[in-house]
């Protein structure tokens, strides 16, 4: 008891800090949401805007926890709104007498926008969504009053801009939670985790599950950090001046983790094949590498420290080189066969390059301190990649749905049909950016149902008896706070969206409020039917978390190798690394709940990364060859390498045993040809390009031979069994 009372003040403080860091942030968000709504609503009434609901709905759609996200979203929201406005006004001008044609074109446009958002999935995707639903928001009411359409369109734009300004100012100025600090913290943590992971790997303490988990996380972080970077540039001018270096840092991390993965796989294969001699010779080199990593372990490396560590690494690299040369001499005493010395050389080169990549990463991190730096000159982009078929399907699904609801409206002269069409457009846009549209739409449905019931009560029992903005806000406050509370938690975000957006649309008093219960109920029911239709369509018309998409993503992953072989060398590494991870990240999300499938897709990513990275380095090596006769394009080894590249493309396009054997033979022929090429240079890998070519080729060969690789299994079996599991 005694100790408990003594410890309690500090324990209380610690608990308070913990609460502030986890829950407190959520309450800050709720507070900021209420404040921005307060300002926006007051302005909307003060300026006598015709639809205050649009202002508030905009605030809730734009509002994010981090201010950078809000600013980025606001920027793209304005662009999307302007594009949507232009298209709608054009459509109205073309078809204002003809509702059928107008709705037909509107649904096609919406389909395009939703497909675009599924294709980009970042802020540009968000602009697509907005271009779509601004068109619906302006266009559908305009079909009822074409003569006012233009003025109404302008009012909507003004309302949206007021909403954006309020949300942006409040989230940027008051208790800002910056995206940039979040981004830096994520980078520090990721690097620390990677060092721990790498040391465990070098010490042989990693099992396959750990490797899979941490790689899935790194892939998700690579994508997330890229989004954070573009959001932070909106928010912080210091980040904008460092954009190139931050992109480079992310890319160097991806290269680093790919390199480490290759090294780790090679060591594993050596262990599986019981290559004791090689492993024994390598051990001192690995120990040296662990020593190099030791000072970086377990603490967050800040930018100021990075320069010093980079300097240390630069000298350690030379020691590592000496250690490798010594080890090779020791191995030579044991008279290894050709394959063993190749194994050793390949592993040693990977290890050295790993240290080199690490050095580059640290240099880039150190360069972040100064405002300007030569490392800023970095033109390669993060290349997001997604499944084209999935994007087309989600676009078509949305267009069909809007068409269906519109024809129902026209056929039955449904008095609330316009609300239903508007709602379906809005919901399709809102769910198109999420990874699980079906469940999200269901959440929106439940949220909209709840807020409608509360709104009905407020509208007919409370609004008539209150007077003045202050009291109105006191009434709205708790309802909106509850919605914001739901919105901020990822698990309940759908309920929050449904609650808030449809509360604003249905139950917010306008300047000239009409108390008409039957109208209210009709609108409510129409909204619920439309959201329900969207939920049903998203859950049943080719939903994305099914085998068809997994198969598509697997195919896309394999096509990355074709990209590595055929694309231009400029910016190839960044394009290859980032797009492969982006695909894996989507695959992981879409296959959630099917660990077998996730593992299968993860192994495909490994196979593609291993072989693809080696192929790219092989191509870079060839591009940088000096002009000497034994490196000429007409030499036999260059022809063999070209044949091998073609064989690899064939293999990854059509995976079967025949193609694998063909690829293996091609690699072996290339190795043979390189070996038979005379090269008058010392045979170390820092002086001899052919030595390096040889080790890349050897690495490709071991990848193809790896019995755990999906190349060795027939992949259709895994997908069939996974789809059986979903069916049952």
């Amino acid at each position, binding site marked *: 008891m005694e100790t408990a009372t003594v410890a309690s003040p500090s324990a209380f403080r610690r608990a308070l800090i913990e609460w502030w860091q986890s829950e407190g942030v959520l309450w800050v968000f709720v507070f900021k949401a209420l404040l921005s709504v307060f300002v926006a609503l007051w302005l909307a009434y003060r300026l006598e805007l015709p639809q205050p609901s649009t202002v508030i709905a905009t605030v809730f759609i734009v509002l994010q926890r981090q*201010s950078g996200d809000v600013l980025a979203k606001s920027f793209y929201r304005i662009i999307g709104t302007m594009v949507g406005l232009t298209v709608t006004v054009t459509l109205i001008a073309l078809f204002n007498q003809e509702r059928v044609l107008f709705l037909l074109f509107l649904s096609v446009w919406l389909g395009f926008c939703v497909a675009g958002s599924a294709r980009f999935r970042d802020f540009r995707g968000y602009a697509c969504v907005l271009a779509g639903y601004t068109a619906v928001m302006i266009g559908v009411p305009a079909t009822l009053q074409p003569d006012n359409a233009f003025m109404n369109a*302008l009012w909507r734009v003004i309302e949206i801009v007021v909403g954006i300004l309020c949300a942006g*100012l409040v989230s*940027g*100025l008051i208790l*800002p939670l910056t995206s940039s600090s979040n981004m830096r913290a994520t980078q520090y943590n990721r690097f620390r985790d990677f060092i721990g992971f790498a040391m465990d790997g070098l010490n042989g303490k990693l099992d396959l599950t750990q490797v899979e988990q941490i790689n899935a996380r790194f892939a998700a972080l690579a994508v997330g950090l890229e989004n954070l970077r573009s959001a932070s540039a909106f*928010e*912080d*001018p*210091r980040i*904008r*001046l460092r954009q190139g270096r931050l992109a480079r840092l992310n890319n160097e991390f991806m290269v680093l983790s790919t390199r480490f993965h290759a090294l780790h796989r090679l060591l594993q294969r050596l262990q599986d094949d019981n290559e004791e001699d090689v492993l024994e010779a390598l051990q001192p080199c690995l120990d040296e590498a662990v020593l190099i990593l030791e000072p970086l372990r377990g603490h967050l490396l800040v930018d100021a420290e990075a320069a010093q560590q980079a300097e240390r690494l630069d000298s350690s690299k030379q020691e590592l080189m000496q250690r490798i040369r010594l080890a090779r001499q020791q191995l030579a005493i044991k008279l290894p066969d050709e394959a063993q010395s190749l194994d050793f050389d390949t592993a040693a080169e990977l290890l050295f390059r790993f240290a080199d990549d690490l050095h580059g990463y640290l240099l880039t991190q150190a360069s972040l301190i100064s*405002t300007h730096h030569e490392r800023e000159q970095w033109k390669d982009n993060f290349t997001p990649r997604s499944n084209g078929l999935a994007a087309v399907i989600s676009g078509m699904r949305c267009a069909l749905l809007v068409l269906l609801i519109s024809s129902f409206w026209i056929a039955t002269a449904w008095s609330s049909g316009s609300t239903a069409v508007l709602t379906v457009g809005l919901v399709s846009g809102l769910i198109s950016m999420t990874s699980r549209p079906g469940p999200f739409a269901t959440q929106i449905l439940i949220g909209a149902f709840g807020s409608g019931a509360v709104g009905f009560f407020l509208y007919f029992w409370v609004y008539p008896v209150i007077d003045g903005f202050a009291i109105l806000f006191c009434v709205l406050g708790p309802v909106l706070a509850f919605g914001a509370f739901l919105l901020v938690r990822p698990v309940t975000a759908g309920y929050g969206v449904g609650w808030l957006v449809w509360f604003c649309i249905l139950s917010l008093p306008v300047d000239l409020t009409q108390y008409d219960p039957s109208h209210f109920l009709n609108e409510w029911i129409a909204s619920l039917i439309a959201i329900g239709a969207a939920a049903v369509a998203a859950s049943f018309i080719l939903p994305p978390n099914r085998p068809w998409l997994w198969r598509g993503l697997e195919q896309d992953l394999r096509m990355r190798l074709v990209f590595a072989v055929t694309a231009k060398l400029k910016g190839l590494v960044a394009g290859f690394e980032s797009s492969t991870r982006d695909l894996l990240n989507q695959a992981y999300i879409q296959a959630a709940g099917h660990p077998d499938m996730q593992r299968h897709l993860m192994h495909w990513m490994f196979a593609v990364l291993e072989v693809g990275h080696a192929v790219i380095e092989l191509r870079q090596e060839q591009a940088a060859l000096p002009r000497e006769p034994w490196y000429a394009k007409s030499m036999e080894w260059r022809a063999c390498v070209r044949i091998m590249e073609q064989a690899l493309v064939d293999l990854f396009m059509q995976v079967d045993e025949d193609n694998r054997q063909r690829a293996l033979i091609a690699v072996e022929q290339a190795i043979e040809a390189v070996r038979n090429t005379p090269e008058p240079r010392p045979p170390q890998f820092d002086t001899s390009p052919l030595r390096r070519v040889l080790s890349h080729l050897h690495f490709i060969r071991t990848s193809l031979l790896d019995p755990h690789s999906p190349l060795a299994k027939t992949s259709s079996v895994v997908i069939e069994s996974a789809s059986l599991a979903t069916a049952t």
Partner: protein
Amino acid sequence: MPLPREIDLLGIYMPTVTLLFLVTLAIGWGIDRVIAWFGLYTYAWHPILLRVSLFTCFYGVVALYFYQ
């Protein structure tokens, strides 16, 4: 120099303040770039607040100058 309260822009009457807002936005963006380039934001406690305040000051000056 008194300016008309509304400006005819392709057949729509726009309040002049709106146009001034856009003009100030462009100027503010330029100044922001210059400040960032010289690394002066490092000395600001709250860069976003500084940016918004600078913008407000400029907008006020420009609007008052034309509307005096």
